[in-house]
């Protein structure tokens, strides 16, 4: 009930934000902070002695004849990502105070959060799909209304890509739904029942393996678009670059969790039906994405675009982790998959830190190109330090959250892929190179005097970014905070 309460409150907040006349930013900030606090309290109450499975399970029938009911359930996976969305949304809304956005902007931002929360707590495929779709709309509008140069094209691309992905998702859900109906003569859209290895092997793979491949293809396709993975990523750089910064934070921090969530909420329970060929394909795709995006990022001169590709590159680890989880067993598999889930969390937090500090830099200097910004340490030492911290976290420096995820995946990967591991390492070296190169060009070096005298971030901004950095640091030093419960969840699902 508690989590449903938070969800409804959030819905109410979104509506309030659309309606208020004055001080939309302040109200939205307080609202998102409240949601964050409530989510944290919820996590403490329900997940301190978590041993796997779902908490807060409840179901409200809508139309039982075709199996529709609003069922909720929160696993450790959802919990971690609920926390992530709450943090990212708070940060995004908070830093947007640098510009004058109108109330619809905040309404749309909170609507995105509603969609994310709905997606993460739904245990019914109809609502899963509805929220999956619902998230696209406010994000689409945020890009197309508030975006910068080329916003229309970017928004359109984002929309078309994710729509095509969604169609496949829907087809897969419907396949499961109709086969279940034929098999058991009852209709259900309950995720727990549909994502059942015994059911799939007996009634779908048994009669006709084509349909298993069909539905796996649908799921993989739609999740890989959202992730995004090569070659379905073309929407990403444009969307990230054209979107206003707060929306980029949401894209990199929160929207990117959807693909990973799909992987681990939908595909993980049915790994037994995923063949080793598909698993290998996923691993190789992940490694290829990692290297490809890293190399593309290296050649960008616009810091925002570079970090957009960096974000995509680190999503490669998630594909790798799922593939390794499928192909191995026992502790190695748990470590790999837990690492993958942790990567979603870490990546979201780190990207919010990077993009918010880039936002403040862009807003102060008027430029986000690392060819014109130089020696920023002199004029904006604190925000530069935050950017440096974000960059270090993004390249996987130990002690920060990203390392725990990457180390888990890399440690587990040798068991499955052997010396192909060196390709991952190559990707990581390239990643380190361009991150450090960006720091050298933008933060170090002689100061670009044309920029004049600059003001460092405000006290509030420093406080909020410190809070974000502390989360990243704590998760890097004491990962058990989330790692342990995710590990329990993964153990339970396998």
């Amino acid at each position: 009930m508690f989590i449903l309460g938070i969800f409804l409150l959030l819905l109410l907040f979104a509506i309030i934000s659309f309606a208020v006349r004055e001080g939309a930013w302040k109200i939205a900030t307080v609202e998102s902070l409240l949601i964050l606090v409530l989510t944290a309290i919820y996590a403490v109450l329900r997940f301190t002695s978590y041993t796997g499975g779902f908490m807060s399970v409840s179901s409200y029938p809508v139309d039982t004849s075709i199996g529709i009911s609003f069922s909720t359930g929160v696993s450790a996976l959802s919990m971690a990502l609920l926390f992530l969305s709450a943090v990212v949304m708070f940060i995004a809304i908070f830093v947007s105070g640098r510009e004058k956005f109108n109330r619809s902007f905040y309404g749309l931002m909170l609507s995105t959060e509603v969609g994310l929360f709905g997606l993460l707590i739904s245990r019914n495929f109809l609502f899963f799909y509805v929220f999956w779709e619902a998230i696209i709309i406010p994000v689409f509008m945020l890009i197309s209304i508030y975006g910068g140069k080329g916003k229309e094209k970017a928004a359109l691309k984002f929309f078309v890509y994710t729509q095509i992905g969604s169609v496949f998702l829907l087809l897969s859900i419907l396949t499961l739904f109709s086969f279940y109906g034929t098999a058991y003569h009852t209709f259900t859209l309950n995720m727990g029942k549909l994502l059942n290895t015994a059911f799939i092997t007996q009634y779908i793979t048994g009669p006709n393996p084509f349909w298993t491949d069909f539905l796996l293809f649908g799921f993989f396709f739609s999740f890989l678009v959202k992730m995004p993975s090569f070659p379905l990523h073309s929407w990403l750089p444009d969307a990230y670059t054209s979107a206003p910064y707060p929306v980029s934070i949401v894209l990199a921090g929160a929207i990117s969790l959807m693909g990973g969530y799909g992987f681990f909420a939908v595909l993980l329970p049915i790994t037994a039906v995923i063949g080793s060929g598909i698993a290998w394909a996923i691993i190789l795709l992940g490694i290829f994405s990692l290297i490809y995006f890293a190399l593309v990022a290296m050649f960008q001169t616009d810091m925002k675009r570079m970090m957009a590709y960096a974000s995509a590159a680190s999503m490669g680890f998630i594909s790798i982790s799922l593939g390794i989880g499928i192909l191995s067993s026992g502790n190695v598999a748990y470590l790999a998959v837990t690492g993958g889930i942790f990567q979603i969390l870490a990546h979201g937090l780190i990207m919010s830190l990077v993009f918010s500090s880039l936002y403040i830099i862009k807003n102060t200097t008027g430029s986000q190109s690392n060819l014109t910004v130089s020696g920023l340490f002199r004029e904006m030492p604190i925000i530069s330090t935050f950017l440096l911290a974000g960059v270090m976290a993004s390249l996987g420096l130990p002690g920060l959250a990203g390392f725990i995820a990457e180390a888990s995946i890399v440690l587990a990967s040798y068991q499955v892929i052997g010396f192909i591991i060196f390709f991952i390492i190559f990707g990581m070296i390239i990643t380190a190179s361009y991150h450090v190169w960006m720091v050298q060009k933008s933060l170090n070096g002689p100061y670009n005097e044309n920029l004049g005298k600059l003001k460092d971030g405000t006290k509030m901004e420093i406080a909020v970014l410190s809070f974000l950095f502390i989360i990243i640091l704590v998760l890097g030093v004491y990962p058990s905070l989330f790692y342990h419960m995710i590990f329990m969840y993964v153990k339970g699902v396998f």
Partner: protein
Amino acid sequence: MFDYAWFIFLTPIIFAPIAAIAGRKTKVLGGVIASISITISLILAIIVYIGLRLTDVPVYQTYNWFGNIDAGIYIDHLAIVMALMVSFVSLMIHLFAIYYMKDDPRQNTYFGETALFTGGMLGLILSSNLLEFFLFWELVGLCSYLLIGFWFFKPNAASAAKKAFIVTRVGDLLFIVGLAILYSLLTVRNVASPLSIPYLINNAPLIAKEVGAQNLTIIGLLFLGGAAGKSAQFPLHVWIPDAMEGPTTVSALIHAATMVTAGVYLIARVLPLYENATYVAPDAVLFIGAFTAMFAGTMGIVMNDLKRILAYSTISQIGYMMASLGMVTVIGTSVIGFSIYHLVVHAVFKALLFMTAGAILIALMELRDVRRMGGLWRRMPVTVTLMFIGSITLAAIPPTAAYFSKDTIIDAAYLYYIRSGGNIYSILPWVFLVIGALMTSLYTFRMFYLVALGKPRSKLAEEAKDPPMIALIPLMVLAFFSLTLGIIQYRFYDFIDPSTIHVSVPFMVEFTPLTMVVIGILAIAVVYGTGIWKNMDLSRSRVYRLLKAKYYLDYLFTRIIAERTILPLSSGIARIESGFSRDVEATGAGAMGFGSVLRRIQNGIVEYYFVFLIIGVALLMLILEIVGGI
């Protein structure tokens, strides 16, 4: 009972931000707080040392970190010796840095970072798990990166920091592949905590039997890759000379005394794994170490930058420590003592040398070219005396400490040759190390001559002044230890490994290194003492040009690998990427005609869009009704 041992590394880490923040208003406070925190570490380390002497049982406390990976502290004799050395040398350097950095407006940041570094280094030494070790390994790497680029506005410093980071990162990632292999192999055999250091070193023979010596060899080579990156061994040594762009106290602390020896410590830490691997892994350590000892020395001779001469000498000396560890299969675990003893002695005298260099650079306004110094003994007698003590120690002239530490390693190399059957291949390490000794003598006395003797060759050198005596006290302490540490040689070996053997070699062999040193001194006396060097034109000589170009390794890494391979690859892929993006758009726009529709929709108001959402959901419900009805 050793709970407080955690605070050996936690204290500086906790105090680091305090030093950085407290030092913002009152500048000197940063250095004072950092020094106090390191003093606390030193005292705690001494208490633990006494405790270890009394109980003789290693301290081992560990907790679950994540998954099946633990983290904690493991303090045996090896670790406590390192902890004592690091906290002591770091304290001396911090005290001198209070003077050295006194005019820098960002000194609070500096002391915050060096305190963090010291904490990280101590954490690395006390780690009980290799992944935890890796965490601190990277933390000190980060501090090194930040401190090399401390004067971030200097383009050279910014670029050197980047280079250091990337080159060591290459090594670090090799290290983590080694960890991955070890982890995978042991986890599938149901080992509870596969990367725990005490487990690895106490069960090495068993592990070798379980996973195969072949696999251990691969792991050993990958660890060596990591160690080579951190400890600047061939061919990953290229970052250290550039790293001299940082403040000189940083070079003393990080790039001479402590961090660069982390690679040696890593291999010493897991040496039982090398012992049980096939001969390839320890031999690789031996040959890379011995070769680096000679190779870096040759470059040290032609450098004109005071700090770079010292940098190459550091690389070369670390080569000796590495080489010593590589002899483990033939000589046994005594080599850990030989190596670590030289490590400690080196830390003391190299910190001393770098700090005297720092004092000289302050007096000469950051002029680093030795050709423009000269005659400083008149102007800076105390500093030059200290530098002289450092120099004779570096050159291993008796009775300084390095004479005992370094010659033991060279003699051990001869023993290695005798014991491994006396073939031509196994004499090479000894030859390399002896040539290394000659090189050491050459570059050391060339440096000392050009800096201190002769006549001043620039205006700055004529007007140099000694720093205040109080600032030089830490240097005097270090000089005292450089001269006297030799006394404890055998007690030191026995503390590290009670079964240490006495290396005894034929008289002729034993005095070969010393002969080399004398030859070196004479050569320098002839060339530099008589002024011949002023008329020498070496720029035509092939050898000279090869050495000046640092064997073209920088050229290979920067020009050929980075600029001619990776960058074109990256630009090519970036071009493919933008082409791909355009193609997608073209296909999309052509096939769907979607654009015009959407442009129309975009003129609408926000509420309008929700109608779309509702229509969409309604459509979905409809589909479900139909499908459900089948």
